[in-house]
């Protein structure tokens, strides 16, 4: 019976060499000892399984909450989008009456840095990583700093291109069109699927970059694709608005 404390020591990983020898001997010769050890080993696994199941349930709960959040977000976004479209409509009526549809002005009118959805930076929360700092700078509109920091982010995966996406927009915000185009073009031409579609967003920003660079034909063909191709859902209305103004 007293030998059972050897089982405790086994689980704590504190058996001495001598005790380990005794432990093995008992396992072979003492059926009660063996039975108890097996029971406790099973007990450990059962505890682990239960804990994992409850953690899994917690995570499923997070998924449910996300779905709820998403559907509320969608309704809100739609309402907001509808408002913006109406306002833009009124705005463009006024704007058009002045007949000022210079591509650069159109760029300025429509450009807005894509919100940081990849790496939300919560107020007061900072894990100190370069990536967090980069996105903080981006959110604060400090695009020079953001670019520098984005450049030092160690990408976890070569084709992890969301960092490039935000870097491209940062260049665009600084009117560095050549750099912006260079970065956004490969992302825009990469055909991706799923809800996390950077590529179509990159297409929109690429169009704006061409506008800003006064490369009208390229801008037009980008905008045509965005407004006419069914695969595109992002900034469709805006794209056809700009096209109309350009023509």
């Amino acid at each position, binding site marked *: 019976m007293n030998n059972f404390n050897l089982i*405790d020591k086994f*689980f*704590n*990983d*504190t058996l001495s060499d001598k005790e380990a020898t005794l432990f093995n001997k008992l396992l072979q010769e003492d059926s009660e000892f063996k039975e108890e050890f097996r*029971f*406790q080993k*099973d*007990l*450990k*696994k*059962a*505890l*682990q*399984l*239960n*804990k*994992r199941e409850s*953690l*899994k349930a*917690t*995570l499923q709960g*997070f*998924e449910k*909450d*996300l779905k709820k959040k998403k559907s509320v977000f969608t309704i809100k976004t739609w309402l907001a989008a509808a408002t913006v479209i109406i306002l833009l409509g009124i705005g463009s009526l006024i704007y058009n009456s002045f007949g000022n549809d210079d591509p650069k002005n159109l760029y300025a009118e429509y450009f807005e840095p894509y919100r940081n*959805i*990849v*790496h*939300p930076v*919560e107020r007061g929360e*900072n*894990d*100190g*990583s370069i*990536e*967090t700092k980069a996105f903080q700078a981006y959110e604060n509109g400090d695009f020079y700093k953001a670019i520098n920091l984005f450049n030092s982010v160690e990408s*976890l*995966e070569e*084709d*992890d291109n*969301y960092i490039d996406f935000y870097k491209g927009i940062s260049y665009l915000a600084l009117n560095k069109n050549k750099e912006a185009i260079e970065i956004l073009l490969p992302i825009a031409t990469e055909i991706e*699927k*799923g809800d*996390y579609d950077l590529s179509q967003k990159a297409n929109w920003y690429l169009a704006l970059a061409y506008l800003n660079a006064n490369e009208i034909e390229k801008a037009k063909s980008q905008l045509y694709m965005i407004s006419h191709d069914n695969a595109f859902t992002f900034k469709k209305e805006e794209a056809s608005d700009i096209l109309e103004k350009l023509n």
Partner: protein
Amino acid sequence: MGNQNSNTTLELIKKGDQKTLKAIYEENRKRFLNFAKKQGLIAEDAKDVYQDSFIAFIENISTGKIQSLHSSVSTYLFGIGKKLIQYQKRSNYRLKTSSAVKINEIKEELDVNFLEENVTKEQRLLQKGLKKLGAKCIEVLEMFFLEGYILDEIVEILHYKNKKVLGSQKSRCISQLKEIIRHL
């Protein structure tokens, strides 16, 4: 400063703080799923792998394998995730035994194991039995078997009078469990 912050995060994770877990889960989810999909996983599998990576990360914290965070949480999650995706591609996703796996991103070994495989009838029964056992017993058993505390440490943390009292409490819990199972 950053280090201190990440170690507070570690403490909160260890305590099972729901807000912290949720924040980490949501912060890394999209990027992880995107990454997994790019590796050729379908959406449903990607989510599974993400949750499994998340669980493996938490387990390594509670067993004390991860004692302080040397990199950001996402580095750990992606490091574990990459391994799991590799295993899945080798079609032997559910590893049969617990195994220490070298995670390149953090240059450390972590335990990445899946226990669902080969669960015996006795173990299933014990799982059920544990759900009927009192919270105090579960606390002691988890600290001892899962979190790797020795009895002396548990005496201190849970304010037991001495090791003997705790020892007999633990034995009582185990006997109780045996009794419950007998009646299941």
